[in-house]
């Protein structure tokens, strides 16, 4: 289960990598800053379509070899699911949840179907991939029907919850903060947000905490103020704690990603890059972050601090709305306190429980690199593999080489370099590696493997080894089995 979650987390990194740039474009393009609508529109394209990016990203992340066609199918699945559900009931908004669901379904079906060789009878719809599209369409239609009839009740329930929370004052603000963060992994936080921001409360005909705040209601802003300490200080400190806890040799790289993520959160209030980097690795730590967020909202509400944002709780909004706020500057010392708490909690939790946050991953034995996947592309991981292998002599390569231009020829050559078919007890592919069980490790010819394009050989023990070959691992193994 956790393994699957981490796969989703890793898949989401592809779209998330675009967010910092988009967040800056969007925030700086707003009328209250540089006022370049064109720039804001482009940034907005990323945020508005985040659910679609999640659908494509997750489908691709799940699919074998990250095949692009799964991404196309993921997009289709998302459109069918959301448009179908909306045809039944206009008020339905599945947002990121719809995207993640569509991505998972697509990835799973795609893999199940592509395992088979193209069936003759499926030729007229384009073989196994065409078949996958048909199946994905059908499943998405069924899901759209289910969501179309069930979802409005879920949404209604959430609205009732929102009304009940709003009436509880500081405690309500705390519960809202907790829920807001807990729902992010499921993409449901916007449902609660849209109620609290745009529906809750009434002031001269204006409704919603955000709408009323900008209309000048002095009592509004209690559900937004407490976000500033978390987004400007708490989460960036968590990111810095991850840098401090990283292995010394990886610290610079981690500082790069986490520094960018921290700055993004501090300036714009876009927190996903930080949150997604640990939510799937350490769900308990994420839970703690949700509790702290609730605490911040409750404290700020109780102290009578009222502040708001029309984008998110970053420095830019803080500065722009400073004249609307009540006791707005109190948020700075509170924020610094939260920053210290976050740093201490994160640093020691990571150290004590040995959480594999970015930069703490081991070159492990299972063939997958759990944390590194978040930071590095697989190719970069491969590039990190030891490279101190002597170059193969021309003769060795010539002996091993058949025709390397075809996959079959390549497979032949790899097999020879592994000591031939009789030396290979077991072989399977894992994303970018061959996982091997060999009779005799001595027969594995590392220089030749390197010559053939492998970027690393990891010998685990007398019989087990892994060879990093890149994304073609799957096809290579299929072909190699032909010769065994």
């Amino acid at each position, binding site marked *: 289960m956790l393994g699957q979650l981490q796969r989703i987390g890793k898949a989401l990194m*592809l779209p998330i990598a675009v967010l910092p740039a988009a967040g800056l474009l969007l925030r700086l393009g707003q009328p209250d800053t540089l006022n370049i609508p064109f720039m804001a529109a*482009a940034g907005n*394209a990323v945020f508005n379509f985040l659910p679609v990016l999640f659908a494509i990203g997750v489908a691709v992340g799940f699919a074998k070899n990250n095949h692009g066609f799964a991404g196309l199918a993921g*997009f289709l699945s998302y459109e*069918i699911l959301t448009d179908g559900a909306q045809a039944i009931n206009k008020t339905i908004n599945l947002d990121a949840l719809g995207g993640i669901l569509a991505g998972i379904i697509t990835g799973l079906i795609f893999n199940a179907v592509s395992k088979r060789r193209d069936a003759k009878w499926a030729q007229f719809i384009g073989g196994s991939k065409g078949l996958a599209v048909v199946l994905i369409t059908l499943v998405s239609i069924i899901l759209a029907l289910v969501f179309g009839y069930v979802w409005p009740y879920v949404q209604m329930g959430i609205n009732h919850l929102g009304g009940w929370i709003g009436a509880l004052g500081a405690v309500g603000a705390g519960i809202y903060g907790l829920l807001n963060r807990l729902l992010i992994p499921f993409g449901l936080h916007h449902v609660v947000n849209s109620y609290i921001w745009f529906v809750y409360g009434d002031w001269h005909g204006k409704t919603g905490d955000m709408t009323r705040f900008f209309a000048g209601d002095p009592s509004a802003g209690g559900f937004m103020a407490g976000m500033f300490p978390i987004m400007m200080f708490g989460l960036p400190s968590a990111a810095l704690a991850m840098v401090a806890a990283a292995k010394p040799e990886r610290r610079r790289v981690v500082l790069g990603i986490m520094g960018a993520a921290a700055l993004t959160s501090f300036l714009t209030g876009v927190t996903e890059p930080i949150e997604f980097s640990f939510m799937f690795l350490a769900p308990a730590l994420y839970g703690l972050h949700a509790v702290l967020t609730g605490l911040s909202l409750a404290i700020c509400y109780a102290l009578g601090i009222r502040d708001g944002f029309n984008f998110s709780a970053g420095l830019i909004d803080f500065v722009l709305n400073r004249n609307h706020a009540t006791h707005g500057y109190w948020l700075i010392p509170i924020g610094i306190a939260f920053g210290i708490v976050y740093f201490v909690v994160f640093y020691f939790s990571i150290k004590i429980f040995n959480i594999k946050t970015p930069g703490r991953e081991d070159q492990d034995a299972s063939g997958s690199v759990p944390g590194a996947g978040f930071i590095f592309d697989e190719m970069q991981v491969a590039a990190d593999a030891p490279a101190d292998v002597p170059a193969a002599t021309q003769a060795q390569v010539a002996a091993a080489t058949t025709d390397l231009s075809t996959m079959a020829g390549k497979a032949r050559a790899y097999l020879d370099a592994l000591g031939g078919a009789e030396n290979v007890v077991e072989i399977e592919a894992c994303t970018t590696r061959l996982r091997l069980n060999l009779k005799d490790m001595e027969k594995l010819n590392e220089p030749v493997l390197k010559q053939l394009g492998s970027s690393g050989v990891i010998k685990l023990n007398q019989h087990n080894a892994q060879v990093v070959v890149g994304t073609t691992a799957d096809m290579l193994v299929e072909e190699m089995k032909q010769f065994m």
Partner: protein
Amino acid sequence: MQEKLGLGKVVGLLAVVFAIGGILYWIGDPTVTNLHFIQAVGYAVLSNYAIILAVGISIGLAKENQGAAGLAAFLGYEVIVQGTKSISSSIDIGDKGSIVLVAGLIAGVLAGYMYNRYHKTKLPAVLAFFGGRRFVPIVTAGACLLIAFVLGHVWHS
């Protein structure tokens, strides 16, 4: 395992996708079953024809049909369409608009090209996270931003 799908094979698969959309749309038609829901699902496929083309073209062009190219194509398409719209509000970006097909073709070809050119980009350690395949959507969106700027000023529908 199949070898890489070339553009031809991808076009064949896109034909299957559009056929599914068309069949669903027809089944839901008032003169056939009159199921509004099924028609809406068919329309969800057909009305996004430009995006489907963009993603399809990009993965057909990209080495090993890598999905990062598809994601970049979608993103590039939206950047072009939303960007031009913000420059000139008279541009129709609905499925009947003339710009969507152009945006789809440009984004598709560009994303495939950008993937092949940049998917092994090594950035300095500080930005390493944004390197490799993840660099592809970023650089594609950046290029599409420029294209949107030009198109927004010259396109009239």
